[in-house]
């Protein structure tokens, strides 16, 4: 058998057959018939090779190889031609149709604020401390230097669970607990839910989140308080002016409140800020010596500062939410807006 001639014939017939294929299936059938590993014609010819003399073998081998490459190449080309033709026949793709969606999850807006605050303080060495929501009178009031039966208590209308058990009215008891456990130096923030005996209306809730901060060490001063909280405000609100005003909390002295420039009117004065141009952000102060003593920390050696803020109020301002109850309703249409 003259394999070179056979190869030429296979090449001719093969190209014809490939050209005649008008579908993928026909093309696949042609591929199998021509090049198939079990019963393809080329495979059969290759099987004849060993019978030839070395010289014939070289010539035939080269011819068969050429045929193989040629057919393979042509098969590929024809496949692309058929695919292109198929595309041309299908309806055009409308790329404006919507993508295939999935449910989007979201953190609660109050959580978003808490995590941003946490992140800023974490960068400057604060860790997170937690404490129980049911507290004793001592941790919630006495150790925090609340004078018994004093108008200062009016700011903390309390829900009681027992004679000496209440729902904490602020996260400040965790200051005491952390100092008792670890002593100074301490640098913590305390996120958590707190409770007040307030009617649930557009601007009050009987349970809400708070974030507390505490830094106690030797040589800590009001400068540290002001510097850290100013840095915090700049990070959370961007370039903004801050203002510190005298205030009163039983557990800090000197006490202060920090305002940032009103985010609505940028300081010009509007209805939201009652014309003052400022928005109250947090309360703060130097930890009262009585509080350090109650926590077993020597107030002559150590000093500290603390702050507390309400992420819910900040969420209302930032996201333009007029009614605080919206934060509790858990309406999926509201929560979905916080998907990122």
């Amino acid at each position, binding site marked *: 058998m003259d394999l070179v001639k056979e190869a030429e014939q296979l090449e001719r017939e093969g190209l014809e057959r490939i050209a005649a294929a008008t579908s993928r299936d026909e093309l696949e059938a042609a591929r199998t018939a021509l090049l198939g590993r079990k019963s393809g014609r080329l495979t059969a010819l290759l099987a004849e090779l060993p019978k030839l003399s070395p010289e014939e073998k070289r010539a035939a081998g080269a011819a068969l190889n050429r045929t193989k490459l040629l057919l393979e190449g042509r098969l590929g080309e024809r496949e692309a031609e058929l695919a292109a033709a198929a595309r041309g026949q299908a309806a055009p793709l409308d790329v404006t149709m919507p993508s*295939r969606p999935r449910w989007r999850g979201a953190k609660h807006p109050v959580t978003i604020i808490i995590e941003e605050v946490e992140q800023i303080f974490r960068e400057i060495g604060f860790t997170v401390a937690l404490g129980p929501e049911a507290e004793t009178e001592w941790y919630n009031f006495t150790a925090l230097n609340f004078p018994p039966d004093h108008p200062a208590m009016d700011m903390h209308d309390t829900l009681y669970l027992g004679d000496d058990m209440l729902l904490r009215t602020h996260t400040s008891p965790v200051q005491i607990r952390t100092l008792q456990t670890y002593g100074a130096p301490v640098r913590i923030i305390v996120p958590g839910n707190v409770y007040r005996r307030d009617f649930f209306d557009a601007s009050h809730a009987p349970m809400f989140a708070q974030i507390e901060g505490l830094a106690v060490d030797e040589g800590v001063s009001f400068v540290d308080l002001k510097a*850290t909280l100013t840095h915090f405000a700049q990070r959370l609100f961007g370039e903004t002016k801050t203002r510190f005003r005298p205030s009163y909390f039983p557990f800090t002295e000197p006490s202060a409140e920090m305002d940032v420039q009103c985010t609505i009117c940028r300081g010009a004065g509007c209805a939201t800020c009652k014309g003052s141009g400022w928005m109250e952000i947090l309360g703060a102060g130097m930890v009262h010596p009585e509080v350090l003593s109650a926590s077993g920390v020597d107030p002559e050696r150590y000093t500290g500062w603390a702050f507390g803020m309400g992420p819910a109020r900040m969420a209302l301002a930032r996201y333009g939410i007029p009614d605080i109850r919206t934060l509790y309703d858990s309406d999926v249409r509201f929560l979905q807006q916080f998907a990122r």
Partner: protein
Amino acid sequence: MNVSHEWLRDFVPTGLSPREIRDLLTSRCATVEEMRPVRQDLRDIVIGRVVEAARHPESDHLWITKVDAGQGELLDVVCGAPNVTAGTSYPFAPVGATLPGGLKIEKRKIRGVVSNGMLCSARELLLSQQPTANSQQLLDEGILALETDASPGASFLETVGAGDTLLVVDVMPNRPDLLSHRGIAREVAAATGDPLQEFAGEPWQDVTGVTAPTTAQSATGKTGDVSVTIEDREGCERYAAVIIRGVKVAPSPEWLSRRLVAIGARPINNVVDATNYMLHGYGQPMHAFDLGKFGNRVIVRRAKAGEKLVTLDGVERTLRDSMTVIAGAERAEAIAGVIGGKGSEVTDATTDVLLEVAIFDPRRVRAARRALGISTDASYRFERHVDPESVPVLAAQAAALIASLTGGRVDGAGVDVHPAPRKRERVSVRPARAAALIGDPIPAEAMAGHLASVGFELLDNTDGVICTTVPSWRSDVTAEVDLIEEIARLHGYDRVSTDLRPFRLGESPDAPLWLVERKVREALVAEGLLEARPMPFVAEGKGTDIRVRNPLAENEAYLRNSILETLARRAEHNLGHMQGDVRLFEIGTVFARGEGERPDEKRHVAALIMGDRRPRHFTDSKPPQCDLWDAKWIAEVVALAAFGIDDLKFSMNEGSAGLTVSAGGRDIGLVTEVPLDAPAWAAPAFGIELDITNAAVPGVHRTVTRQLPVTPAVQVDLALVVPEELPAARIADTIRAHAGELLEKLELFDEFRGQGVAAGHRSLAWRLTFRHPDRTLRDKEIDARRAKLLKALEGELGVRQRTS
């Protein structure tokens, strides 16, 4: 505390504008929350500029003017004032405005000419006083010409200003000395250096011969034939009484009612107004009794339990023996420091007045106020502290004021019963300590100067310590740190530097539970769930016995012991708004009875899902609904995030529709269908709740990765006929036990009941993936394993391969 700017200037002759005073007070002592003109009835008045003025053809005294009121076009306005001049600005009431007194301005024809508004005179605006800025008053001489640069249309109140400004000061409970105009003025004077006037220079006729009441350092005293006895010395520290006879009760003069109206108080009559004036002006609550109805014995005593008193508001009150009362010989006439009694009220018929100027115990007043549920200007101040040293001076001042206003006469000096005067507190401060706590170097002399400026008396300086005597009105200052706060605020918080200084790390590590909660939250958000933070209160009978003792509402009197219960109610809320695809989760606290009074608090994660498993798409217009298997997956997601485990055990929960979830042999929660009060169209809801309280295991993560395989895998499918009662997990365990170490993966990929499967059975199809780490597996090896597996399954579980 409502402060009138004019009244404040009676005490300190400052040139500061209301705005400047607002900023000064806010930065140094107490925040001014609000500032507004007292004359809110002028808010509709704008600046109107007369551009032309021509005689009215039908009248010899009317003018037809063209007024620019900033509306973009000139308005025709008819005016009868002789002084109207083109080029001048006047207060203008446009159509729709309401004048003080209630007259509403409408468009109307005046002798055939339409007038669109009104140019106003000072009288029409009820401006009895000179407006403060750049204006000139022409009472009775026509309309009020204004010398102002304000553009036409600008608010009259805001640009010209008229009369008084109200400042609403948020006074903190530690600063009762700021609850009067004189107290606020003291701070203004300290800041500006202006002198503080001890008295306001009220424009009343000086009454000659009035002196401070005679102080009796005992529990009893007498003025004329009236005796005063303090029986309850705990409840009353000091009691001064002055008698004014021959009074004529009448409305107050204009200056006095104006002061009271400015701060929102209602004028009543000259006697009551005088006491109110003293309270708001000087901070000393006072009470005027009708002496004729009271009798001539004044006894300050404990109330008798069950004693009755009709108070000024007409309500009959039942008293407790913890209250202090002012009584006559027979009955209580007033509740000390809180409210007077109807029986001895000053009326138009009153001729003789007994004026009470006293100091009552803060706690007693507070307890009475709370028990009775009435808070008054007096109780508010007594609760916080009233300066006991001012009593005699202010008693004389008030008596003279009443005599002057009523035409009465002060009868005798009065008596000031003061059994045990207290000494003023002495407190000292180390300047070095103050500087260290503030953080900036402030010279000791400056510190002393700040303290002196607000009334602290400086004593001899020893060892560089600043020693002071605390003024009698500053009961809040008892310790060094109180003086440091005074120094800091008077130095100015704004002047303290803001450079971030080096710090040490704290000793307290991150709370492990917080880190766990963050991981769980991230995982659930990634699963497409929405975080909720709902109220944790529930009604009785919802599974918890932790009750709030003083709840605001009975339907929220208990603390929950299940978050899923809370989420179920939130899901119903969503269904109420036609939202059927609900995917909520919460990480929160639940409560159960613990040891003693302290409840057992746990941190739980719960999720509730219902409705479409994925959002609709045009290729997928009816997505399947969420079912129990979706919920089970969420439980596994939480467990992996919280505990780092992926081999949770699930078992049927006896007596409920749910599954119990356990990990490491401990029950940690449940997966369940959630019953809802739901409309017919709603899909079933499924939920999970896991306890993550103990998930917090701190430590270094030690997962080691497997090398990726280089040899091919072989897959074997086994379809098994399984009795219904045999759990799939048992079969999986048996397969794993007998498949050998080459089993890489085991998947359950089909469940089938019906044709070809005997009743009471189901077909479960498993795909086993085998792989040898070093070489390709031979067919013979696989066949042998399959045979061995089938034998073991039949032998141990009686399970056979499905033949179809």
